[in-house]
């Protein structure tokens, strides 16, 4: 899922301080699961905002809502009958949701309430780690199911640099060396031979194309 973290409340206040009618909109998707933007976070942020405005002596409305997903138009459309009552929306969805809202409601300022970080999973409660950078050309088949692009600090494609020790990355001892993991895994799978074939320079065009990337699945298109 997409992992995000709540923005510091002072940063949110900074972007919203001049508005009088605010809607805090959460998303019931990924950001709920990573505890950054679900209904609970909506309540917390909205409550904090109201306290802030009250103490600032302002008469401000801060309403709360959470949509099933903000990355699908039928759900974002659920705001259509309400949005006119607000002069700003704080979206607690990932960057996709914020932008979908912004595209759908062109005359409304939409502000992000979370920092969208990466695609990852739940390591333990309250700890999420990255697994995928969405490069668009998966090489996991050759790397024992462990992605060197997401897991190696230098995105090395042909093995570890000389800096790792005890299986930890030279950049930070808290990070496992991605290539160490790949090596261990290949060894376990008896596929160490795959390691010695040099990997050619990667085709990054699926990752660093101009403008927003597209995924088209013809069979799924209507």
């Amino acid at each position, binding site marked *: 899922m997409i992992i995000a973290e709540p923005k510091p409340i002072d940063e949110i206040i900074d972007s919203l301080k001049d508005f009088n009618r605010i809607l805090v909109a959460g998303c019931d998707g990924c950001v709920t699961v990573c505890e950054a933007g679900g209904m609970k976070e909506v309540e917390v942020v909205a409550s904090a905002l109201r306290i802030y405005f009250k103490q600032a002596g302002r008469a401000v409305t801060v309403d709360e809502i959470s949509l099933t997903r903000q990355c699908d138009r039928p759900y974002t459309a659920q705001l259509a009958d309400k949005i006119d009552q607000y002069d700003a929306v704080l979206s607690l969805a990932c960057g996709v949701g914020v932008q979908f809202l912004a595209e759908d409601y062109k005359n409304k300022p939409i502000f992000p309430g979370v920092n969208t970080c990466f695609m990852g999973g739940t390591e333990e409660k309250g700890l999420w780690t990255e697994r995928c950078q969405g490069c668009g050309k998966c090489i996991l088949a050759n790397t024992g199911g462990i992605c060197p692009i997401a897991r190696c600090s230098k995105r090395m494609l042909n093995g570890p640099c*000389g800096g790792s020790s005890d299986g930890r990355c030279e950049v930070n001892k808290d990070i496992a060396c991605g290539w160490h993991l790949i090596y261990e895994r290949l060894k376990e799978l008896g596929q160490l031979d795959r390691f010695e074939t040099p990997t050619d320079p990667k085709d990054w065009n699926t990752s660093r194309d101009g403008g927003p990337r597209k995924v088209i699945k013809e069979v799924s298109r209507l």
Partner: protein
Amino acid sequence: MSTTPLYSKLQKILAAGHFGVTSECGPPRSCDPKGVEEKARMIGDYVDAINVTDNQTAVVRQCSLASCIRIKQMGYDPVLQMVTRDRNRIALQSDLLGAGSFGINNILCLTGDHQSFGDHPNAANVFDLDSTQLVQTVKKMRDEGKLLSGFELKECPQMFIGAAENPFADPFEIRVSRLAKKVAAGAQFIQTQCIYNIPKFKQWMQGVVDRGLDEKVYIMAGMTPMKGVGMAKYMKNRVPGMDVPDDLIKRLSGVPKEKQAEEGIKICIEQIQELKEVKGVKGFHIMAIEWEEKVPEIVQQAGLYPRPKVD
């Protein structure tokens, strides 16, 4: 050993069966033209080629290519170090073309230290290619006369291609395979990480010899003399991938502080002597960090002077 043409002085000396000797100099962190010149002059006659580092430890310095040009113009043989951290394949190839145009014939392909260690930790890294892929790229440009895109070059860079290897890094079992991989990609010489743990290095070398890799690539043992016990401890604890045995630290701390530098040089020389006997070791890469003035002494006392002449 490979039968490709001999491009550089270093390559020629190695091909002739002599122990090769290289050293390195780090360019200054300013526009000062003298820095590189002075260092090169200090060591030029005691080594076969001079490596010039490329923004080492991710700290901004004068560019490696410019310094190499300067050294070439002084009449010495430079080794152009190139890291993939800061430039994508377009910039890397363009620099290679530029280097070729100045007759620079040695290249050392590196990935480079992570920017988080340097003076611009917020910089975006590139890592479009990794070191192995850079080796492949140079080889392709030189041997096929093509850029990665397939564009045909009218004149190709004539490069003796090198790569680095750390025999001590984890996982140890993978180190020989990784060397093999670089050789397969086109590396012709290897400059290793600083060697202090001789037994472990020998173990690695044995693996290299067992796979016959020593017949395919010149291994130059990396040597860095210790200035004192403080440096030894720093290297042990702070520098990633460095293996400094405790008995070495013990030996250094066993002598008075003012004698430690001398002892460090002595250890370095003893180790060179010992490594000369190791099968597969074809030369030495002496990295006297900010201590270039000691290189002549080491080279002389290790019995590597005078340097052979080749044409």
